[in-house]
């Protein structure tokens, strides 16, 4: 009887976890979308810096403004528990994001600060963009180093 009880419980547990397992597709697309917007706007600035695109103060300012805008998005709803790379496909978000939420939030905030510095610098020519680019790259790296799994 006891064994039967366990078996029933196990069956229920398995069924339940199947029933409640979600792919979090919308959340995943939303957060990956914002990274795309970041990369696109960083690309405009970086290409000007590398000399692959002519410097255009207005475009540079708009790109920097967009970075700040993304940094101000409320993130929480895009990162539900169980949407890590061990639980769902198509993400490199590691489970430690949910183990260290404060560190994760702090690293996102660091990006915001770096983006604001870029916002202040962007219309000042490539000589001003250059020094502001480093901290942005640093904030991307710092978060990816800890919280993102390698590709593949």
């Amino acid at each position, binding site marked *: 009887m006891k064994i039967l009880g366990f078996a029933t419980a196990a069956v229920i547990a398995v069924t339940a976890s199947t029933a409640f397992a979600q792919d979090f597709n919308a959340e995943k697309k939303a957060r990956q979308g914002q990274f795309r917007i970041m*990369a*696109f706007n960083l690309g405009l600035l*970086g290409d000007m810096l590398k000399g692959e695109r002519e410097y255009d103060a207005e475009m540079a300012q708009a790109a920097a403004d967009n970075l700040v805008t993304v940094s101000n998005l409320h993130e929480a709803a895009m990162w539900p528990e169980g949407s890590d790379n061990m639980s769902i496909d198509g993400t490199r978000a590691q489970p430690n994001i949910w183990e260290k939420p404060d560190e994760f939030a702090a690293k996102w905030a660091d990006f915001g600060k770096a983006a604001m510095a870029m916002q202040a610098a962007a219309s000042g020519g490539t000589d001003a963009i250059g020094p502001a680019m480093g901290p942005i790259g640093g904030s991307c*790296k710092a978060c*990816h*180093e800890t919280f*993102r*799994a*390698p590709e593949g």
Partner: protein
Amino acid sequence: MRLLRWGIFLALVGAAVGWWLSRPVPVDDALLAGLTPDPENGALVFWAGGCASCHAADDAKGDDLLVLAGGQSLASDFGAFTVPNISPHPDVGIGGWSAQDLANAMMAGVSPDGAHYYPSFPYTSYAKMSAQDVVDLHAYLVTLPASDQINPPHDLGFPFTVRRGIGLWKLLYLSDEWVLAGDVDAQIARGRYLVEGPGHCSECHTPRDFAGGLDLSNWMGGAPNPSGKGRIPAIDPANLTWSAADIAYYLESGFTPEYDSAGGHMAKVVGNMARLPASDRAAIAAYLKALP
């Protein structure tokens, strides 16, 4: 009976030859003779060699990268290696080491008391370094803060616990010959030195054979990630199609041409490479483009 005696005799000879072949061989005593240490260049060697990425704490940033207390654990097919304390602490670090000791460790994989190091310490790459760079690095390392942190031993299974066996491994895999052989221009030569030597890029970017030696026929061809999910990407010209300028910019900023950013261990490597002169990053890019 006579056959048995012969058998025993041959077995003993074989064991003696094996023992002799597997002995730890330090570098030449005269290797460092007459070299004057330059700690300023030593700092550049320190970043080129990526010492802090493994020997500092895993999450170290800024000045904490200079505290080489060890303690990180490196996963491998043979067990987990614990990174040692190489801060200049006299007892638990390498404060008592001479430049010669450092050269033996880095270029021959031999400890001051004459034992083999495991090749998790990438001396197979460091063997290609110049003696001057090692002397300079030694002069820089002694200026760093000392840490009294004591780390746990490696966690390996038999037979990998027998260090003497590494002597035979070294016969197969320890060489100071360039992989990109032959005459190359000055920039590519500098890149070759940085990549194949101190930068030890191949240790992750080149696949290994069953014995853990690098598969030189698949140089920079990418490999499984030893520390978990995913793969270390191939960076030979067939696979890494970025321009030389893109590669150099990536090493400086961490940004790919698509403005994705470096992650994982490579984020640390970029942090190191960013401290080198721009000419060195360009040289690394030139070397990678020059690979077959």
